[in-house]
């Protein structure tokens, strides 16, 4: 009777699991697409808050919370959600991987929709493999580096990985193609289609296309890693989840405590291995083998697939010797190796970088950013701030912030400038690397000084008035501070024919300049601007001050 009931329940549960995966994937995409400018209008007319909980998934991430706790001894924003997810994992196992995680769902779909592998080859791939313990090495490596305040978890945390890949590479790539198609249709398509193409463009601009076409430096690598990872899932189902994912590893460790598990009835089993054919976690669901609880995603495929009802999930399942091993199959060497590699990474990056000796000029951090050491301890490189930045001024660092700062946000004024009245990046940061900043504090209000990210310096050899005697006031016109940080010295110059003329020479008042980069952005000298911002004087760093 028991097996009959189980078999009837299982397909219903599979539908529920699929619905859950679909809904969470949809929710994830909706929140990501809403992480963009036209936001709710608050703050006396300025739209500076997004009316949706766009940090939700990152706040629910126990790994990000744990790393933040270890590296910066701080409790992350929205930590209760992460605690709840962790508690749920301890109760039932890796439900997050099988039912919630959007990256897991994408891997799942790629691996099972018209699968590349079939039959016995698929069954072989789904047997528990030794390399599944790589992810524990990854986890311990990152965590041990975190102990020494080198925080790199964002590189491979699945949510950071996914948000970064989509925000910086995949969505901009899609936008480029769609924009080209709609532009071409509006411009030179058949008369009948121009109106609809224009309307579609306007409808898609905010959520998908971006206010202007987003372009992010080094996005090719971000995207390449993502596409490669998804592609691998066709040959090794859920390769990421089984071998790489440090969040999966952390949840695997928690799942070991779970009283919920797979009950196998060896007496009913005829060794058909259909459970293995459908297994997502490669956790050995087949009776006769030891079930590896830490690997199971709770996808429930095995219970639904078993033609004899030999498998079922329940609290306190019997036959403990079949249920689990005493410890997850980490491999002691991998644990020690991971810890050692993580610890060794610290002196490697710190001694190999001069950035701890002198500040990096192009490392201009978003407004509200904490001091660099704390910034690196907090930033998970998720790319939310870069996605939300309305001018695409925030770019993933490539070499600007050293190897530790790879893909952390830096302001690149030649691409975009920091909009004076905008504080959106500080509202979406999940880890407070960019601390919540009010518009009042950022601009200094009516009489104060603005939040200082850096300072603009004029290159007199390239500046049109300074060097060529050509009138130009564009940097001053664009300077948003009041009084303006750029002012004019009137000077008389001699032209080639001996004539004299008066010209306005721009000068920078470093105390007023907030380093927003509007001057550099607008400078008519296009390749390398005649006025350029560096991080000098940024208020968050006591070691980067140059004024008395």
């Amino acid at each position, binding site marked *: 009777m028991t097996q009959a009931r189980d078999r009837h329940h299982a397909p219903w549960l599979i539908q529920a699991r699929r619905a859950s995966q679909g809904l969470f994937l949809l929710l994830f995409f909706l929140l990501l697409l809403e992480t963009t400018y036209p936001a709710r209008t608050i703050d006396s007319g300025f739209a500076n808050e997004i009316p949706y909980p766009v940090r939700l998934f990152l706040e629910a991430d126990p790994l990000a919370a744990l790393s933040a706790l270890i590296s910066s001894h701080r409790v992350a924003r929205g930590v209760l959600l992460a605690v709840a997810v962790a508690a749920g994992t301890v109760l039932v196992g890796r439900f997050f991987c099988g039912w919630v995680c959007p990256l897991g769902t994408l891997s799942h779909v790629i691996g099972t929709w018209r699968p590349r592998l079939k039959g016995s080859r698929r069954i072989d791939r789904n047997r528990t493999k030794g390399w599944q313990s790589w992810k524990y090495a990854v986890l311990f490596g990152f965590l041990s580096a975190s102990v020494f305040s080198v925080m790199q978890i964002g590189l491979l945390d699945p949510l950071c990985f996914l948000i970064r890949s989509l925000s910086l590479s995949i969505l901009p790539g899609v936008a480029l193609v769609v924009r080209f198609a709609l532009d071409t249709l509006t411009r030179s398509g058949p008369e009948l289609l121009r109106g609809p193409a224009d309307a579609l463009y306007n409808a898609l601009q905010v959520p998908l296309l971006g206010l202007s076409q987003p372009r992010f430096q080094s996005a090719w690598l971000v995207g390449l890693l993502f596409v490669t990872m998804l592609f691998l899932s066709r040959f090794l189902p859920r390769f990421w989840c089984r071998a790489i994912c440090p969040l999966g590893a952390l949840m695997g460790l928690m799942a070991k405590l779970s009283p919920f598990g797979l009950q196998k009835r060896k007496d009913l089993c005829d060794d058909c291995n259909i459970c293995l054919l459908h297994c997502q976690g490669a956790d050995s669901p087949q009776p006769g083998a030891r079930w590896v609880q830490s690997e199971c995603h709770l996808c429930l495929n095995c219970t639904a697939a078993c033609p004899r009802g030999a498998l079922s999930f329940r609290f306190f399942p019997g036959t403990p010797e079949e249920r689990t091993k005493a410890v997850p199959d980490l491999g002691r060497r991998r644990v020690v190796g991971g810890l050692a590699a993580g610890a060794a990474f610290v002196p490697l990056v710190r001694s190999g970088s001069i950035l701890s000796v002198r500040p990096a000029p192009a490392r201009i951090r978003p407004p509200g950013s904490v001091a660099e050491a704390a910034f690196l301890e907090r930033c998970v490189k998720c790319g939310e701030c870069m996605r939300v930045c309305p001018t695409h001024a925030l770019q993933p660092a490539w070499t600007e912030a050293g190897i530790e700062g790879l893909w952390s946000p830096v302001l690149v004024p030649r691409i975009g400038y920091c909009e004076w009245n905008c504080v959106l990046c500080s509202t979406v940061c999940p880890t407070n690397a960019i601390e919540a900043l009010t518009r009042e504090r950022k601009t200094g209000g009516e009489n104060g000084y603005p939040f200082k990210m850096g300072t603009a310096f004029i290159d007199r050899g390239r500046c049109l008035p300074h060097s060529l005697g050509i009138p130009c006031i564009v940097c001053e016109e664009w300077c948003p501070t*009041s009084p303006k940080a750029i002012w004019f010295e009137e000077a008389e110059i001699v032209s080639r024919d001996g004539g004299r003329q008066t010209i306005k020479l721009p000068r920078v008042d470093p105390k007023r300049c907030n380093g927003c980069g509007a001057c550099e952005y607008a400078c008519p000298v296009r390749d390398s601007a005649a006025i350029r911002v560096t991080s000098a004087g940024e208020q968050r760093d006591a070691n980067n001050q140059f004024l008395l």
Partner: protein
Amino acid sequence: MPPIEPPDGSSKGMGAPITRRKLLLTGVAAAAGIAGTSGAIWTRKKGLWLGRFEEGSSGKAGETPRVFDFRVEQAAAALPVVVATGGSPSALARSALDALGGIGTFIKRGERVLIKPNVGWDRAPEMAANTNPELVKTLCEMCWNAGAAAVIVSDNTCNEMHRCFDSSGIGAAAKAAGAEVVFPRDALLKELDFNGEAIRSWPVYPHFFEVDRLINVPVAKQHSLARVTLGMKNWFGVIGGLRFRLHQSVDRCVADLATFIRPTLTVIDAYRILLRNGPQGGRVSDVKVAGTLIASVDPVSADVLAATLFDIKGEDLPYLRIAHSRGLGEIDRQRMSIRETAVAS
């Protein structure tokens, strides 16, 4: 010769041979794709998409400047320059337009109207960096009342476009009045031969010109190079390209644009004027509430009178001198017919 079948009879998967049929179909598809793409690029390069925009211009290619003329035909010269003072932006607009004979003088039933405010910066209305939103709303409503078929509000902003339209209140004001807000798209820019003195050819947004009437609604602001930015300089906002370069010869460029674009009406918002740190401002203390509005069919006269609010004489502004010498309007106050209206507040 029959196609060679694989031994197991299957033609799926990687090992499947390419049949002649498949090869031909692929070839045809690829050729169609390449032809379509090159066709699209060709038509784009030829500018075949232009349509109405090309017909709407009255200028001719050659050495004479190209002119887009939106003026009303009848005896416009007889109309006065109106200086309205002492009320809300909305009341000022109504008072000034009444003095000009009502909006019906300019907008006829069924005409498409574009209102061009200054929405340059991500600033709140109190900062006087952008045209007053209430004024824009009132003008939109007036155009609808005159029977306009379409009322469009558009500007090529400096700061990020959506933020400018939101923070300035102009986007909401236009929508409240039922007008269409058009955000310029760089993809639709068209390089035009203007044959001006400083601007020979420049990329422009066609939608600004694909209308029957064009109303210029700038805000009066201090500017470090042009000294004040008023009506004529507001045309910087209908062109695209690398506009930053125009400042190297700002007076000739402003005069050139005023030569190319002859608006139906110039309505200068001087309800709040920006005295310092223009053209963006940033502090309430940079702003003076002047409570004034200047409306005229003569763009030069309108700018001359607005300049006086900054204690600047029209003759002292080189771009107005150039515009006057080109016959674009009157620079001498003595020769203008000025009508002052005071709104009871």
